[in-house]
């Protein structure tokens, strides 16, 4: 525990620094591989759409889920005299229930099947009759919701950060998280239900929440960057990510703990249903959301920002200054390594880093003193 805090202190001072921004090509490559895998899963395996999307009737019968009982339930459906109900999917659900999915039935037919199940020994039968268009609607509304949300996000981030580049990066990170989550569903073969869709939409909020917190720190660290000669924009942004790393880890753990509890309890006690579907999507999405705000959103925002002349100008200034310092100090032959891409790690890990960090913190302390 203490070590995590110490770690936090080192990160804060820049004594330990992970080069999130500088090595962006590596992170992009990793993400691209993951995204391709997700896409491949989607193409080859597809999504197992739940009964809500196919239409049909789902019965949940309270009966010990033994093989014999599963067969008995299957036979009961066959014996119900409802021809459309033939060949149902019978699965166990949790510790004391069996789930039977049939094709779409009318209410009368469903009632007949239910009576037949009851005769075969099932008690307390839940029945869920879903029209064929229900799932389409869910999907359609979710799609509309998605676009509305994305639109709002762009506007919100732009309004808050005054920076469309951050909006774009946040959106890219969002989509990244969504695709990964969908990919996990494709590969794992978990059923996609309306609860899953809700989970997906919730991920949007979470992923963005995380990104906003990191961006907030980036903005703080890079405010007035034109006037500093100690760190490039990219380095300041990288320091921000490092400084919020402990928070990101803590947040993820604290968010994932309850969701994990939901997932475990949902699966253990109920077997299937909205709890499982929701929490699984959330679990994957939240993890991806934390990853993407660190490894994708910030590097991308920096990359977009680096196309601005002011940023490039300042980076050159920093470089020149470093070169000058190096020459005058004639400290070591390591100076040769201070290239534009490897610079961040070197710069912040030198022993002088803590002192050099002071100027960039000055604006903050100034702000703090302002009310005086």
């Amino acid at each position, binding site marked *: 525990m*203490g070590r995590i*805090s110490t770690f*936090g*202190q080192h990160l*804060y001072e820049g004594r330990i620094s992970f080069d999130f921004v500088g090595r962006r090509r590596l992170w992009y490559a990793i993400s691209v591989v993951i995204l391709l895998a997700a896409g491949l899963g989607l193409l080859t395996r597809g999504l197992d759409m739940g009964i809500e999307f196919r239409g049909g009737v789902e019965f949940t019968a*309270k009966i010990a889920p033994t093989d014999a009982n599963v067969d008995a339930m299957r036979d009961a459906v066959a014996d119900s005299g409802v021809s459309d109900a033939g060949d149902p999917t019978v699965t166990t659900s949790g510790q004391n*229930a069996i789930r039977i999915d049939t094709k779409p039935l009318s*209410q009368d037919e469903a009632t007949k099947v239910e009576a037949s199940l009851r005769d075969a020994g099932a008690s*307390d*039968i*839940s*029945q*869920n*009759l879903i*029209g064929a*268009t*229900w799932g389409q*609607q869910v999907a359609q509304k*979710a799609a*509309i*919701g998605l676009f*509305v*949300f994305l639109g*709002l*996000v762009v506007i*919100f981030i732009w309004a*808050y950060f005054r920076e469309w580049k951050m909006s774009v990066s946040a959106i890219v990170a969002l989509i990244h998280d969504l695709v990964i989550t969908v990919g996990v569903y494709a590969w794992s073969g978990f059923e996609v239900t309306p*609860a899953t*869709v*809700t989970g997906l*939409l*919730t991920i*949007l909020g*979470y992923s963005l*929440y995380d990104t*906003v*917190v990191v961006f*907030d720190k980036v903005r703080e660290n890079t405010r007035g960057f034109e006037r500093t000669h100690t760190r490039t924009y990219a380095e300041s942004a990288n320091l921000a990510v490092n400084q919020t790393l402990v928070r990101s880890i*803590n*947040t993820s*753990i*604290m968010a*994932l*703990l*309850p*969701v*994990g509890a*939901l997932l*475990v*309890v*949902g699966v253990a*006690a*109920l077997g299937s249903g*909205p*709890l499982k579907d*929701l*929490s699984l999507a*959330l679990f994957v999405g939240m993890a991806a959301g934390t990853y993407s705000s660190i490894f994708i959103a910030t590097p991308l925002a920096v990359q977009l920002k680096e196309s601005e002349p002011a940023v490039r100008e300042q980076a050159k200034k920093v470089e020149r200054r470093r070169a000058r310092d190096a020459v005058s100090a004639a400290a070591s032959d390591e100076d040769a390594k201070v290239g534009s891409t490897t610079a961040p790690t070197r710069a912040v890990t030198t022993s002088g880093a803590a002192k050099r960090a002071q100027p960039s*913190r000055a604006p903050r302390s100034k702000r703090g003193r302002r009310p*005086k």
Partner: protein
Amino acid sequence: MSTARRGRTSSRKPRPGRVLAIFLAVIVVLYGVVAMVGDWKPRLGLDLQGGTRIALEAKTSSGDVTQEKLDEARDIIDQRVNGSGISEADVTTQGGDQVVIEIPGEKQAGIVDEVGRTAQLRFRLVWATSDNAQQQPENGSGNGSGNDQQLPFEKPSDEQTSSGSDSTSDNGKNRTAPTDGAQSAGAKSDGGDDPGNGESDDPSGDQSSGDQSSGDQSDDGGDDNDDADDSSTDVDWTELSLDQMISAETEGLDALPPDYRPAISDLNDQLSSFQCNDKSLGKVDDVADEPLVTCDPESGETFLLSPSVIPGTDVSDVSAGVPQNQVDWVVSLELGGDGQSTFDQVTDALTDQYNSGNSAGSRFAIVLDGAVLSAPQSEAHITNGQSQISGDFTQDSAQSLANSLKYGALPLTFGVNSVSVEGPSLAGSQLDAGLTAGAVGLLLVILYSLFYYRGLGLVVIASLLVAAATTYALVLLLAASAGFTLTLPGIAGLIVAIGITADSFVVFFERLRDEVREGRSLRVAVERGWRRARMTIVAADSVSFMAALVLYIFAIGVVRGFAFALGLTTLIDVFIVFFFTKPLVALLARTQFFGQGHRFSGLDRKHLGIHDRPVSQMAKRPASASAGGEH
């Protein structure tokens, strides 16, 4: 103290104790209100208590589904469901095109057919009536003055006339008149056919014309009225022309072609045995092209009605009001489309009957969902489709009739989207699972925050508990005021929110630690850290809230509960962190335990890993000096 004062102007000096006291007072008040409202248990959704949930989706034949139309549909479905004897049914609109019916408790899947039907408003001709509401079904036709028009075909139809006055007083509750209010009772008297003379076989040669009721085929497969079914399969009622139907009314049922007689005779039997109660009305199968035996549930009068002559969709406008220079309430009705010309034809013939004294032969009936809403006499020939129904209306009854007529005109039809029936024990185990998950999730977060934040972890715990208490109070209040029900996804939303709520604290604490790392005293660090954290918290929570809102608006079904819970807890989170967590930390910063960085406070220098000399004044703080010396 001095440092705190230095940092801020006196007017903005934080008073954490006061803020905290006010906040806790607000919570006490919240619970006071809950105590007054009365219920300490949240309303559980059907998935948690068992019951039937039916989602209907509106399908339009014309135009878009508007919220107004949907609300009207909701009202009539509500009437239907609650009219069928189910108590506590909850009918709501959702997502712009859904009507959701939730019926707690026992299985009610049978209700699906009932509620899914289109509101079927139809105009039919009154072929026969029988006021046997108080009679035994066996009493039949031979008995009593009430059976005015329920006649065997052999009888001479002048008996209709003799009993005509009778029916007027008993049953002729409502009358129609042109909108201009001019009573044309006398105006038409010259043209009146004698209703007594039986030109019974005349109209049979008349082939069915285009005037035939344009009522759409009703395709619902409700419970069939056995007799009606048997008889109606014998003859094809759709072959009947409007003229034939009218003459069956104005001249007696034997004016119908001979083929129809057995069916009519069956229907007459049904009429005599029809009991006007909710149960029998519920079984009435209102098929547009067939005659209908039903009753007016208010007056108890039973009717044998012709096939539909005008569908409710032809009603273009309805309003209730008191016409100028009059004192009584009337319902104004405007027909459009084919209905207008049909009404012209119908009122022409029926008004003749009225003027010649056959008031029973001058009635038509407006039927909604198989029940007679109103059976007025036609007192004027209405050519422009604009008429008024007058009678013993009160404001309420006129308004209610007008509403019903409007609903009938509603062009919304519904398809069954989903029906779920949740057994009580499965529902119970869902609730248990949800609560268990919540408890476990909360416990894990508490353990982690204690592990990581030590003393500050207590603040996290206190804040989470206060947040939980606030959430619970609001859930109770929303249940009482807005009918909020807690569903399984709702509980999931609350659980997920634990993490998101805790995150605000993490953001604040990390900022706080950053300040301590820079060597500031805790008291200063709290204020500075807070100022830097709060914008982040507000921005991040805004995003969360936005997501929840979008989700709520675009979600279908029970998952809305999830979005609602998420949105609610996000708001609560902001309040908690502003008015509870921050003041609490500010207060604690004054204590020795936290302020001087006790080993377990979570803010001690060693724990934070501060080994260097801090940037600023260590000399001021002996405790930190010793802590710094430890390494």
